[in-house]
């Protein structure tokens, strides 16, 4: 069933009796050609593109809970392609281009809103880094601009320019950056995949992998064994747990990242603002809530909740950057579990087990990567070769000394 303005009007006039379930609730079949483990944004996008772009069939997505209940439903909804390194930027720019056509592609309004993102800088060294990054972005086909202090002030006059411990000197801006209605991304992909025959199986937890002679045969689940020719794992937050089922140790730790939303407010902040002298970034949702976040709590955790020190640290950053928010109220805080990898960049690769593929290690970057992650993972699953924008996301890059370390922090996940 196709969504459209006309449809909405027609349904409104006939009591909304015609709306059908957004996706079916099928029972698992005995076997599939492709099993995608994880009904989050990445898993659902993978299934969608497998079916739509790579014309594959007999695909199932297995989700232990309800689809979209993981990080795709608990993030700060920012999309951008302002990465520095060759291993990353082509991929994130590919993702940005997919965002730009996504709603028409999957016929669901995910409110992809390119209202611009700025990264403030406060020192000459940060400005030099912004020049290096911005130039690299443009070389990779993305957009970037360097704003001076006055240009930033014209855009956001309420920032603290006068009485700041670390004065604002300017910003790197990507106008194509912005926000997306996060839940709608999961639902849109789910609906699009379902309508192309993908079985989305909720409340079906993968308990183990069945592997014989170095080849995967399928997965044991809370709803029984399900056979598969190929199994793709996209379970960011639980990657180490699931891959342990295949006897693998991963180059990552799980950490909790808190995010926050304020009470609804009339429009204040049009785009996305990232503070360069504190751990704080903010945007305003279409409903009016200020959506903001900062650093991970910093210790290994699977708890999906954080502690006060980081809450306070984020608020301190916010108050020092925009002292007007003192009288806005924090309404809700939540925590998502991040795969924090050893160089801050993801892994999308085959494993040493035939038919078993892995997608994870997204650190903070998972949401904005969703479309490209699904696309390139589908490419890898369907063709057994990496997509041209994701050739660097290999397991063996650490052994070879080819880390993709945007922050230059080395092998310490909680610093990325």
């Amino acid at each position, binding site marked *: 069933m196709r969504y459209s303005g006309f449809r909405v009007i027609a349904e409104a006039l006939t009591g909304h009796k015609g709306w059908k379930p957004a996706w079916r609730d099928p029972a698992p079949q005995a076997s599939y050609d492709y099993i995608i483990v994880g009904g989050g944004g990445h898993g659902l996008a993978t299934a969608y593109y497998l079916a739509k772009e790579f014309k594959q069939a007999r695909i199932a997505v297995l989700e232990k809970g309800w689809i979209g209940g993981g990080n795709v439903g608990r993030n700060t909804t920012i999309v951008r392609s302002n990465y520095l390194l060759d291993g990353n930027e082509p991929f994130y720019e590919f993702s940005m281009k997919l965002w730009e056509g996504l709603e028409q592609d999957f016929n669901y309004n995910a409110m992809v809103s390119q209202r611009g993102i700025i990264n403030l800088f406060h020192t000459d060294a940060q400005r030099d880094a912004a020049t290096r990054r911005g130039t690299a972005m443009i070389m990779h086909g993305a957009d970037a601009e360097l704003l001076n202090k006055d240009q930033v002030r014209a855009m956001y006059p309420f920032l603290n320019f006068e009485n700041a411990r670390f004065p604002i000197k300017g910003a790197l801006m990507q106008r194509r950056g912005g926000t997306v209605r996060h839940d709608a991304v999961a639902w849109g992909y789910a609906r699009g995949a379902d309508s192309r025959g993908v079985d989305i199986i909720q409340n079906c937890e993968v308990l183990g992998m069945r592997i014989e002679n170095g080849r995967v045969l399928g997965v044991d689940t809370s709803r029984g064994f399900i056979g598969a020719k190929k199994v793709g794992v996209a379970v960011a937050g*639980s990657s*180490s*747990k699931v891959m342990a089922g295949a006897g693998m*140790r*991963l*180059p*990552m*730790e*799980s950490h909790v990242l808190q995010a926050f939303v304020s009470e609804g407010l009339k429009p204040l902040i049009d785009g996305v603002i990232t503070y360069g002298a504190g751990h704080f970034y903010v945007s305003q949702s279409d409903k009016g809530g200020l959506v903001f976040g900062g650093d991970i709590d*910093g*210790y*290994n*955790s*699977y*708890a999906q909740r954080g*502690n006060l*020190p980081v809450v306070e640290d984020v608020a301190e950053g916010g108050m020092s950057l925009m002292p007007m928010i003192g009288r806005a109220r924090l309404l809700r805080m939540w925590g998502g579990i991040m795969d924090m990898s*050893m160089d801050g960049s993801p892994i999308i690769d085959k494993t040493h087990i035939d038919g078993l593929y892995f997608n994870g290690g997204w650190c903070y970057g998972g949401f904005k990567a969703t479309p490209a992650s699904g696309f390139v993972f589908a490419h890898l699953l369907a063709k057994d070769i990496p997509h041209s924008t994701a050739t660097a996301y290999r397991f063996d890059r*650490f*052994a070879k000394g080819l880390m993709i370390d945007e922050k230059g922090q080395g*092998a*310490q*996940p*909680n610093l990325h």
Partner: protein
Amino acid sequence: MIINHPLLGPRDSQEFVYLGDAALIHRPDGMAEGALDKFIDYTYLRDNPAGTHRELWYHEQGDRSWLVVTRNTVTHEITAVELARDVARTEGRSK
């Protein structure tokens, strides 16, 4: 969180800096055969358990002791806190 420092008693975790898995104690010998492979595993691979985890914390704003904290990564419950120096010695580290 509260870390019950073996010498100083309960302290707010905000006084500490977190490093990671206490397996880092077992640094391979850089001059030994096959050191490269050992260092790659040592530096990059983690068990990352959902459950009991032995991890290194540094009391940077306190007495500058490195501690080995045994903590459940699902509940955050802490069941043991030891001086890393003592743990390292009992696990065979010396000079």
